[in-house]
């Protein structure tokens, strides 16, 4: 089991290294197979570990395996260790499973791109980094994984490095993540100062038995929360996620939907002991989650780019997870993380098939009527959309309603506000998801669609085609390597929620509860009551979207509200004015006042000074014999004085 876990961690790293070192000596498809294979090998390792741990007693499920001492100074020791427990196993399975499917999908999607091998190396590297994050046995290794996924995200968003928008988006993502990294690091410094260690056991024990003062706990929790907000794109550090859609679609699916952005939720669940010692910060995270649900939801109502709608939807759903973690419903937070990974990856990959089919078009105003042209994708997308909206018996229903009912069980001002927010969010989710669905799939086929519906191969300029795409009607939508993963994810999105049926069967919750004891548990009655209301609201949202589509108008009418939403609530403009412009001004002033005159000037002066000194010294070489004689005689005169004085 430990071997399985180590295999899971190291296989993607080996794959990435192999592709990197082999360079151009291996073919592109070989690189793709290595990458996909290594991730699936990791999945096999995780599955083996899972089966063994699942068979164990609830109390024995935490395993810490140490490889060697990485950092050892007197007073502080950090070991290279991995933690295998239910929470990390869940994440491992999701990362390698969904990740493996997405890398497989990329084989078809990225075929024919320039620098394909670099992409697959980065993808394997990302999987390794994310696994390091969730499997790290102490906070320092978690931080290492945290930073590495930030790096992988930067590399993959900026994959199309000739495009300035992609490069700018990559920088933006990295910089905003760096803010989170900094707050986390500060929190860790405080922990080292107070407890002398970053091991989970030491730190969590200190947090739960009260040996951390409340101000320390608050500060550390705030630091952790800052990191979680940046990584998971919650308000106010959310502006990088829509821009991150500049990366290839599988990247958006893997990193910015299924795994990396959920790292913040994992962090809160893992360090729940610290958050429970700082309840105000924990409730703050719930409030931030709630605000993000609403803000992201309304912005998604006016977006025209298919990927950006899904991106804002991700932001909104992670808000639900933060809400759950913030009130202590850790099991439901992880459950929603899992179901969200399924249906969001499904939505992104289906969107990818559409984009691939339409030769790179992402604007939904130019799509329409794809229902008849791409039936398989239509079915997959519909399943994903229904799951997202929370319609039973699909997966999203079980998890989202569990969160809202936990808020109800929490009670109090906070709990009831969060219930309202969650329900409004359900309404919004149904509305924006199905606005997207109707605009893309229903109505008359647009010109663009008609152009491309003569077969997948005609006049196609977006990369080479997989040979299989030419034969047979069922494969006309895309290559098999793209269709099979979508099919698998469709099945998962449909049945993946059935591991928690309140009142009947809750193995997933018991699985997580062993690690993170929930603070609130809703009763069965609360569960079904909230479910009924939430489903009704989601259906209402779907109905509103349908009505607006049938009438040919938008859900949000033109006007001040729409303009504000289209500008994403002016967050980008705000950050630009408050941070970016002053920074540029300061940098320019520093350049003109300090860098150029002083630093560069001094270097120039040194050079000129040396040169002048050399020229001056060269004047001693007059070539005149007599001047040399004079100098010799003068030196003798001086030396005589020196010797006389010295004696």
């Amino acid at each position, binding site marked *: 089991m430990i071997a399985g876990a180590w295999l899971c961690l190291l296989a993607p790293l080996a794959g990435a290294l192999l592709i990197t070192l082999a360079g151009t000596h291996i073919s592109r498809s070989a690189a793709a197979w290595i990458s996909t294979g290594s991730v699936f090998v990791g999945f096999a390792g995780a599955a083996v570990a899972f089966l063994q741990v699942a068979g164990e007693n609830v109390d024995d499920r935490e395993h810490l395996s140490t490889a060697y001492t990485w950092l050892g100074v007197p007073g502080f020791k950090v070991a290279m260790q991995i933690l295998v427990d239910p929470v990390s196993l869940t994440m491992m399975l999701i990362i390698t499973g969904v990740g493996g499917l997405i890398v497989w999908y990329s084989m078809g999607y990225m075929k024919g791109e320039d620098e394909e091998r670099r992409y697959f190396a980065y993808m394997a590297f990302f999987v390794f980094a994310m696994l390091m994050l969730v499997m790290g046995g102490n906070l320092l290794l978690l931080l290492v994984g945290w930073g590495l996924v930030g790096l992988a995200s930067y590399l993959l968003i900026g994959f199309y490095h000739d495009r300035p928008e992609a490069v700018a988006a990559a920088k933006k993502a990295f910089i905003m993540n760096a803010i989170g990294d900094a707050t986390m690091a500060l929190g860790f410094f405080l922990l080292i100062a107070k407890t002398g260690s970053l091991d989970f056991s030491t730190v969590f024990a200190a947090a739960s038995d009260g040996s951390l003062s409340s101000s320390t706990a608050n500060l550390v929790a705030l630091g952790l929360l800052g990191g979680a907000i940046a990584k998971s794109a919650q308000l106010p550090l959310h502006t990088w996620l829509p821009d991150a859609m500049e990366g290839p679609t599988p990247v958006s699916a893997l990193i910015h939907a299924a795994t990396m952005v959920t790292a913040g939720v994992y962090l809160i669940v893992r360090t729940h002991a610290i958050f429970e010692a700082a309840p105000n910060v924990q409730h703050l995270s719930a409030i931030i989650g709630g605000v993000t649900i609403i803000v992201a939801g309304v912005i998604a109502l006016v977006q025209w780019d298919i990927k950006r709608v899904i991106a804002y939807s991700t932001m909104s759903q992670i808000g639900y997870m933060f809400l759950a973690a913030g009130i202590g419903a850790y099991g439901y937070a992880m459950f929603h993380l899992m179901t969200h990974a399924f249906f969001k990856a499904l939505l992104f990959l289906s969107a990818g098939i559409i984009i691939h089919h339409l030769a790179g078009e992402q604007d939904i105003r130019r799509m329409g009527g794809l229902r008849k042209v791409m039936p398989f994708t239509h079915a997959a997308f519909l399943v994903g959309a229904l799951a997202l909206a929370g319609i039973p018996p699909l997966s999203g229903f079980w998890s989202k309603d569990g969160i809202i009912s936990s808020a109800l069980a929490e009670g109090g001002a906070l709990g009831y506000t969060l219930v309202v927010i969650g329900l409004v969010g359900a309404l919004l989710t149904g509305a924006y998801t199905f606005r997207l669905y109707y605009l893309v799939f229903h109505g008359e086929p647009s010109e663009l669609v008609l152009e491309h519906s003569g077969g997948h191969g005609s006049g196609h300029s977006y990369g080479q085609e997989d040979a299989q795409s030419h034969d047979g009607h069922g494969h006309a939508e895309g290559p098999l390597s793209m269709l099979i993963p979508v099919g698998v994810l469709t099945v998962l999105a449909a049945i993946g929620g059935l591991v928690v049926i309140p009142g009947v069967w809750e193995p997933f919750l018991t699985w997580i509860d062993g690690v993170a004891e929930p603070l609130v548990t809703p009763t069965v009655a609360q569960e079904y009551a909230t479910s009924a209301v939430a489903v009704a609201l989601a259906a209402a949202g779907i109905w509103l979207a349908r009505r607006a589509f049938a009438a040919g108008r938008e859900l949000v009418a033109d006007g001040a509200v729409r303009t504000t939403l289209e500008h994403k609530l002016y967050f980008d403009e705000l950050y630009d004015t408050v941070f970016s412009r002053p920074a540029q001004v300061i940098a320019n002033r520093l350049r003109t006042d300090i860098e150029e005159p002083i630093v560069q000037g001094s270097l120039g002066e040194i050079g000129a000074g040396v040169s002048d000194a050399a020229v001056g010294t060269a004047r001693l070489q007059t070539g005149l014999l007599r001047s040399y004689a004079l100098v010799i*005689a003068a030196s003798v005169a001086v030396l005589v004085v020196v010797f006389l004085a010295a004696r």
Partner: protein
Amino acid sequence: MLGPDTTWYVAVAAVLFGIGTTGVILRRSPLIVLLSLEIMLNASNLALVGFSRHFATVDGQVFAISVMAVAAAEVCVGLGLIVAFTRRKMELDVDTLTELRG
């Protein structure tokens, strides 16, 4: 001891030495430079002889003889150089020898 004491001898030697140095640096004709060099050598001879008389040892005079021999050898070579100048139609001016200029 008859006559002036050693201080006077050394003083005269010092004056001669100064005159010789001035001549070496001042004059441009290599012949005069050589002559000034001779003055300097003779000055040191005078000092040597004066000190030899003071300490009543003959070593100073022995040294003076050696100096004289070396001076003769040096003059021989120096004059050979000057003759070589004229052979090559060069001007007898020390300031024209500027190969070391840099």
